[in-house]
């Protein structure tokens, strides 16, 4: 199953730019398409599309949602082992491992370094082997 783009698409390329797994391709000003095999159904494309040109896997038309309402990851840093899986999985480079506080500090953790880059796809949540990340919308 996968998100799909219908012919209302005006080829603005915004969804392709924000797709965290590079599943959307196309030529500007033409209709874009989703690589079904690659789509992880995160719904980011649907949230950015101003033309409601994107259908979710059930065939419902998606609605644009303002970015400030998108969910952001919250990481339980106390138990984080700094394994870096989330940092690597994040296609938007929004996450990083914290800097050591002093020379020889080995107690680092993953954190949301750049909230502006985060698209709320939740791939970090899925990949964290210790289940320490949950997505929360800013209310």
């Amino acid at each position: 199953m996968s998100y799909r783009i219908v012919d209302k698409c005006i080829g603005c390329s915004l969804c392709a730019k924000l797709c965290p797994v590079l599943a959307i391709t196309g030529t500007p000003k033409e209709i874009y398409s989703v690589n079904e095999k690659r789509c992880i159904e995160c719904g980011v494309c649907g949230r950015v599309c101003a033309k409601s040109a994107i259908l979710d896997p059930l065939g419902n038309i998606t609605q644009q949602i303002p970015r400030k309402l998108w969910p952001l990851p919250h990481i339980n840093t106390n138990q984080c082992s700094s394994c870096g899986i989330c940092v690597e999985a994040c296609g938007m480079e929004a996450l990083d491992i914290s800097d050591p506080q002093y020379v020889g500090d080995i107690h680092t953790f993953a954190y949301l370094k750049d909230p502006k880059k985060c698209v709320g796809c939740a791939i970090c949540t899925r990949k964290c082997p210790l289940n320490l990340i949950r997505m929360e919308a800013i209310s």
Partner: protein
Amino acid sequence: MKLPRYIEIDLTRKTSKIFVISTRDFHDYLGGKGLAAKILYDEMAAGTDAYSPDNLIVINVGPLTGTGAPSSSRFNISTKSPLTGAIASSNCGGTFGMKLRGAGYDGLVIRGQSASPVYIEIMDGIVNVRDASHLWGMNTEDTQKQFNKRYGQLVIGPGGENLVRYACAVSGERVAGRCGIGAVMGSKNLKAVIAYGTEEVEIEKKKEFDAFVSRWVTSLKNHPSTGEAMPKYGTAGFLKKVYKNHVLPADNYQHTNFAEADRISGETLAEEYMTRNSGCVSCPIRCERRVKHQDKEIKGPEFETIGLLGSNIGNDSMNSIIEWNYQADLMGIDTISLGSTLAFAMELSQKGIKDYGLQFGNPEGISEAIRQISLREGPCAELADGVRALSEKYGGHDFAIHSKGLEFASYDPRHSVGLGLGYATSNRGGCHLNGGFLTFVEILSPVSVNGLDTKGKAALTAFFQNAMESVSSGGSCLFTTFSVIPAFLFKGKGDGFVNHITGRLLTYSSPLLGFIMHHPGLFNFKMFYLFPHIEAIELATGIKCTVGSFLEAGERSFTIERMFNIREGFTSADDCLPPRIMNEMVEEQDTTMSEKIKIMLHEFYRVRTWEDSGRPAKKLLGRLGIELHDDENE
């Protein structure tokens, strides 16, 4: 149960073919280097030249790779080595392995030879062979910059292109270093392999697996070695102990008294050069060093690099080691073989045999030599063939420090004799890891096994070799096994009564280890503290895995690699160490190594059920279910 899915790519014909590993082979070999050895043994003909189109490269993962299990980003590359003529296997912690799984495959088999430079692109299961002429000549960093950062990448540098016999392959900043894998890729005109996709690794019992991983990570984090010493000092932290025990080689293994050892220790690296520690993806141990180099943060050197580009060439400057390590990674050549070859060249000029303008204790000319080696130009071009080839050309056999053609890592085995046996019997040649890494119990860990005594070493070596084969085949980093040493032994200076007793127990464990090896079926249970990998593999894949079957998979892997080598003409005569190590002594009161090796080898063959010729006995092959090919049945 999902069986491993492989794809075979023929670079001559530009065709590909998908195949699935059988349940039996999956159970018997798990994956990684074990399964790769099985493929090479079955698919390759005896005497195939390493650079011929018929040589195969197997790049594969283990069942735990990319599952989220700790330290499981490892992938393996196996082929026939142009440096040794034996089987080559090299393990790497870069992201390529997990990305390959994301792209839909657990392994690649590459055969043939392209007429012009190409790279292989694997996207969502679809394979394309594309032109790489624009990448040819680029260093490993620039090559990787040409692709999207999100892709898994495995590339070679100028070293591989120019067939430096110890060229490596690089994924991110992690390196599959040993045995000349990069040169085999270069001989096939294969500059890079790129993989990407979002296929999830299927986990049989997801909930239980997650809980188990949590427990495993906690145990690694709470252990004094994997939770503290390794993250703080990395492998470089071994150096002080290695030096104190006369195991750190200096001036091409002429002695072990490198007075400036402090200046190149892990402590110095951590306190004066390191910006932070880091690690391969998925690893909570995080032994990687990050250091500043000309306004850029780069990977710091590992212990072996520090020893071989430091003490073994008489160099006490950490800065220069950091720089050469970086340069060698960019050029795509193995820092271990490089350091050893430079040391050999230095001794050639010291003895007046051949002058390359390189001298012990003088950093001048080394950077230029690395450049010339990688590009195979200028007077140092022939250093690209490694120590054995140089000694065959100019002499100096006595001080050519290699076994089966592979240069030693920076552990002198004369005060760690178990490792000496490992170097002599390892399937890829003078390698500390394939050799069983007995230095770990002899020198590094606080269990006080006597490094000078041969007692018990044969069985320990065989046991450790098997265990490490299994851990590798499973897709985990070997450092995950460090936590097997009970935490209480790390208390105090590590030389207390308990440490002594543990050491004695290990020394006298031969009958038990032998029994485990010969009757794996009786060990039909799991033990978290010994090998957490076993339960993780079972939960992830659904194949039944026990202490016995896990260790037997390692033994099978070691044995089939041995059979590959025997088919290539290797015999017991090749299970040896260079004359300098055999006959010269590190300290006056020592006895020579040659006697010790003889005793240990004899016992080792017995424990392994090998004939005197060094060939695994029919009985053993029968128990392991290794089928011989027609031409080998005597």
